[in-house]
């Protein structure tokens, strides 16, 4: 199937912090400007803008997209805000791809931002409203519940231990030490992780990504523009997204089938038949440590129930066969919801161009996959890039 070629030609992001001084607009501006500057492009070369952000409930605004628009360079331009919960940060790149691939636009600036700290007394509280208003909210559920329920099911079905899961935190927080924007880079041991407070068994504190403020942006361009702008465009080879039923308690949570479907859609577009062989770097979504393993399986990069073993064998280390989350991920860099997914795209952009500095994966990686997840254990969004 011949699609119009679209490349990422620039990327930029802010630091991810627990609480930023900057407003949502300012955060968006900083990331958008950094992305444009990295491509040596000006705003008038941008034909269209895509904005991604997760619940308005955090930023303290209704129609948040309208308020932030100025910070994304959207004045006078076609502007769309897409939204699939935590999946937004990777889906937004697919949305941007649609703009350029349609032939209606030659360039698209994609900005994702989140300012969770606005929500008082703690951003966590806003998550109450993601649960079903009729059948679940009266129980006063906690965001931790659904992750803990899923982690427990995953562990039960496959016999995975907490030690195996803790290794993800250790790897990602260590990787994050090489990321200039990281909120929680650290050198930890498995024991440190297991000794950390049990928040919702089987989830320990050091297995949970933080709430964060931050923004990330990329510039997408059609081939003729890309070749003028840079000598190393990173091509978007495949996009995929998939949303499962809202009735999450009617499904078995041990496996993210919606991630598999999204991945297959992206791999088919990219002409990838054996992902484990053809993908050089993976950036799976890691809001909780077990999730990285869960998602690696959904991404077809590990057989069901086997991701933990491959991790223990070093396959997913930065210098392993298939580096996973060399950025440091949500666990290490931070989790401003939508921006976190885009951070992973930025990471692949830098890695494939050999610009990732201390985080650089050896061996000249050529193809990467970024994945985000969101909603009530429901949505998978996947983008495959290559040079």
């Amino acid at each position: 199937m011949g699609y119009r070629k679209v490349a990422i030609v620039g990327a930029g992001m802010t630091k991810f912090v627990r609480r930023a001084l900057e407003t949502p607009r300012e955060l968006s501006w900083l990331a958008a400007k950094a992305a444009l500057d990295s491509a040596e492009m000006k705003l008038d070369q941008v034909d269209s803008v895509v904005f991604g952000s997760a619940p308005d409930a955090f930023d303290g605004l209704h129609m948040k997209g309208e308020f932030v628009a100025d910070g994304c360079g959207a004045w006078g331009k076609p502007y769309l805000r897409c939204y699939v919960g935590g999946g937004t940060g990777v889906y937004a790149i697919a949305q941007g791809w649609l703009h350029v691939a349609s032939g209606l636009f030659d360039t698209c600036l994609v900005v994702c931002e989140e300012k969770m700290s606005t929500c008082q007394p703690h951003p966590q509280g806003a998550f109450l409203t993601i649960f079903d208003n009729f059948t679940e909210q009266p129980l006063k559920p906690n965001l931790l519940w659904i992750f803990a329920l899923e982690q427990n099911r995953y562990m039960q079905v496959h016999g995975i231990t907490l030690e195996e899961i803790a290794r993800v935190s250790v790897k990602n927080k260590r990787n994050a030490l090489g990321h200039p924007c990281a909120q929680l880079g650290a050198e930890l041991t498995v024991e440190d992780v297991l000794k950390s407070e049990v928040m919702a068994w089987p989830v320990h504190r050091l297995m949970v990504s933080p709430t964060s403020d931050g923004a990330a942006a990329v510039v997408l361009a059609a081939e003729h523009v890309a070749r003028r702008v840079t000598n190393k465009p990173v091509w978007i080879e495949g996009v995929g997204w998939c949303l499962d039923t809202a009735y999450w308690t009617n499904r078995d949570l041990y496996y993210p089938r919606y991630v598999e479907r999204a991945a297959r859609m992206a791999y088919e577009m990219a002409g990838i038949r054996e992902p484990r062989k053809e993908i050089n770097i993976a950036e799976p979504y890691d809001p909780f440590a077990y999730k990285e393993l869960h998602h690696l399986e959904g991404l077809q990069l590990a057989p069901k129930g086997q991701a933990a073993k491959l991790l223990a064998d070093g396959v997913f280390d930065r210098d392993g066969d298939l580096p996973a989350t060399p950025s440091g991920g949500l666990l290490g860099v931070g989790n401003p919801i939508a921006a976190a997914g885009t951070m992973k795209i930025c990471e692949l952009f830098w890695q494939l161009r050999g610009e990732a500095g201390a985080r650089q994966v050896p061996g000249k990686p050529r193809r990467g996959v970024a994945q985000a997840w969101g909603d009530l254990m429901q949505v998978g969004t996947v983008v495959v890039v290559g040079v």
Partner: protein
Amino acid sequence: MGSRVAIIGLGFTPARPTSSHQSYKEMMFEAAQRAYADAGIEAADVQSFVTCAEDLNEGLSIFDEYTPDQLGAMLKPMHTLTQDGLHGLADAALQILSGLFELVVVEAHSKASNIVAPDWIADYATDPVLNRPLGLNPHYIAGLEMQRFLHESGVKHEQCAHVAAKNRRHALRNPAAAYPAHLEAKDVLASPPAFEPLHEKEIARTADGCIVLVVAGEDRAHRSAAKPVWVRGVGWANGSFALESRNWAHPDYVRRAAEIAYRQAGIHDPAREIQLLEVDDTYAYKELQHLEALRVFPNAADAARATERGETQQGARLPVNVSGGVLGMGNLLEANGLARVAELVLQLRGQSGARQVEGARVGLAQSWRGVPTTSAAVAILGLE
């Protein structure tokens, strides 16, 4: 890459002030069933879905969680746009023109009746530091804009009242409209002042309803039994959000959105090439302001005179908002744009009964997202 985009299916529930017999899911299911039957398709045929919704209008965060099941979208590509339904139609066009999909569903609905304090929600959309502390009901923004608009354009208040009366009367012939009424301009002016210069009957009341479109690529449209309504152009744009730096009299973002749509549709003289217009009239003066921005009239004063003379009524030379518009159908929140499109689809297919505009071949739908936004979208639909 597909070359053209068409609407091959339309389904909706009628706009009504309340809809207590249905939950939002049941309302969406009804509209979707009707749309798929109209298109002659099964839900399983649809390849991708777009919902247009804002969390705080639904009262649920991450509203896209709750959209797939009642549309038949489970385990399919689906996402939400936090914008008007016309933006959703634009998104569907992008998906089809890119070559990724050939059958996409767009949905939007309103359950405004379920929002207990809607003006507080609208307030929550205003600038939290510079504007919200003034503690004003956000409709004041429309009042400010109308004041400046009248001052700069020379349009008279009474002419705006004619818009409201016309659209409420148009709604009398639209069974899907929530607020039909036989009003004259004097009745509108006699209604209580609300946000001066706006009077109560110049402000659209909210309504509940759901609209689903089935959108197809050219090849798929030709294989469809339904008469395709072609999306000849679609444009959208934002202006600056800041109240302090906007052009109050002229919504430049509407002009920009129209430019993009006209260029795609090959339209150079909108007044001559378009026979049917469905534009935003959430506040009566807006219809005149938008007709100028859309270049249907050289200026708003001309549009106002034409309205006064009855030239924009059904049966006259350039019918505007034969559906009743937002004033007549009701403010359907994110579904307003799709309500405008629904009317065009019915008209172009010759399915509008007593409202039918004879000889309509090209129509324009325009939406605006309401205060405090500067967001608009425009679509040109046609039989060819």
